[in-house]
């Protein structure tokens, strides 16, 4: 894949470009200046951003599926309205991000094609199934919690349109996590069966949530350069550590147990130690072997195909209107 290839050829790519331009660019990002669409930027910077922003957008769009699965079965009208609003937000976030990527010269059609053909990646977390209502609580609490942890530093990412999209997303995202945690509070204080459901959801979502931060730093070939270019502001492992430290007390409050026997406070490092992540599983899911990866893509393609008549009708209406105006 392009990801790993790029890191090995980073020098040749830069040499091929005007050294004065590269130097000026490096100085600008080092000074925490924002790069805007019409500014000169190295080709690798542009490509890295197109890949990262479009993957981010795809994740928002595919992310509607596991939760959409529960809209009709939400346990009350209140929960249904909230879940509907949350899923609607995810669609909006996908649109902000596609627009940000388009400022780099890619098109919406190219990105959607890449997603539907299986070429593009999206967050591995959405290839896990939502089996019970407690999963909706766990997703809001853990998955949106991890997403927020990732996205807050991206509000200061060096590419202006991406940073501004992140500001909007972060502002809207905070209700997502709170509604999830509220569901978890209700279940944790409910019947023994509801408590079991809550624990079971935590058991299944904990490790995939930790994987959301991406491969460990020593196996994340692009991290160093992305940090230098201020595309990333914190490394995968730094963010993962923060997430564990913040989430553990939240689980304690619920009276739930994080499914990791190695999880323990380490006074010396001022953070929690935690167990080994199953990276084999992570890479398998990245390769598209997640439990429901195929269903997710089928659902996306079906939604696109089923919506074709709406797009056609809108285009026909506009053509008719123009013909009338010209007459």
């Amino acid at each position, binding site marked *: 894949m392009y990801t790993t290839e790029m890191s090995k050829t980073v020098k040749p790519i830069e040499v091929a470009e005007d050294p004065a331009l590269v130097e000026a660019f490096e100085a600008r990002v080092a000074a925490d200046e924002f790069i*805007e669409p019409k500014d000169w930027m190295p080709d690798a910077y542009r490509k890295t951003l197109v890949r990262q922003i479009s993957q981010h957008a795809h994740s928002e769009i595919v992310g509607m599926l596991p939760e959409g699965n529960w809209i009709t079965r939400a346990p009350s009208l209140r929960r249904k309205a909230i879940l509907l609003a949350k899923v609607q937000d995810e669609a909006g976030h996908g649109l902000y991000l596609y627009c940000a990527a388009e400022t780099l010269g890619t098109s919406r059609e190219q990105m959607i094609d890449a997603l539907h053909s299986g070429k593009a990646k999206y967050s591995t977390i959405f290839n896990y199934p939502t089996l019970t209502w407690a999963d909706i609580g766990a997703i809001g*609490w853990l998955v949106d919690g991890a997403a927020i942890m990732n996205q807050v530093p991206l509000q200061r990412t060096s590419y*202006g349109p991406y940073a*501004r999209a992140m500001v909007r997303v972060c502002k809207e995202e905070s*209700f997502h996590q709170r509604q999830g945690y*509220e569901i978890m509070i209700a279940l944790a204080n409910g019947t023994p069966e509801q408590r079991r459901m809550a624990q079971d959801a935590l058991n299944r979502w904990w490790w995939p949530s930790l994987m959301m931060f991406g491969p460990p730093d020593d196996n994340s070939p692009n991290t160093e350069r992305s940090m230098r270019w201020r595309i990333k502001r914190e490394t995968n492992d730094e963010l993962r550590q923060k997430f564990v430290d913040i989430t553990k007390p*939240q689980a304690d*409050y619920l009276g739930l147990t994080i499914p990791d026997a190695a999880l323990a406070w380490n006074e010396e490092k001022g953070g929690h130690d935690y167990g080994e992540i199953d990276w084999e599983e992570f890479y398998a899911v990245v390769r598209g072997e997640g439990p429901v990866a195929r269903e997710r893509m089928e659902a996306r393609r079906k939604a696109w195909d089923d919506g074709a008549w709406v797009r056609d009708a809108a285009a026909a209406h506009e053509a008719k209107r123009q013909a009338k105006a010209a007459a």
Partner: protein
Amino acid sequence: MSDGGQGGHDWPLWEVFVRAKGGLNHRHVGSVHAPDAELAIRHARDTYTRRLEGVSLWVVPSSAITASDPEAAGELFEPAESKVYRHPTFYDIPDVVKHI
């Protein structure tokens, strides 16, 4: 030269947007008349950024802007009024739970 303001000989109108500093959105600040986009940028610079108000300008032909109908504002925005659950403060999370 003067047509009493009624002759329809004004240069086209352009809406002007200024980016105050790097990283911020361009914001609408007003408009200028100009015969073409290039002069519109120059007029915008002279009219709206004489005191370093910005680092970047956009000009858009005013005729290219479609505005929502003020008469329809009520029904257009009403749906959001009842959806208080879109705000984080709607949810009861005890103060002892941090970072959420």
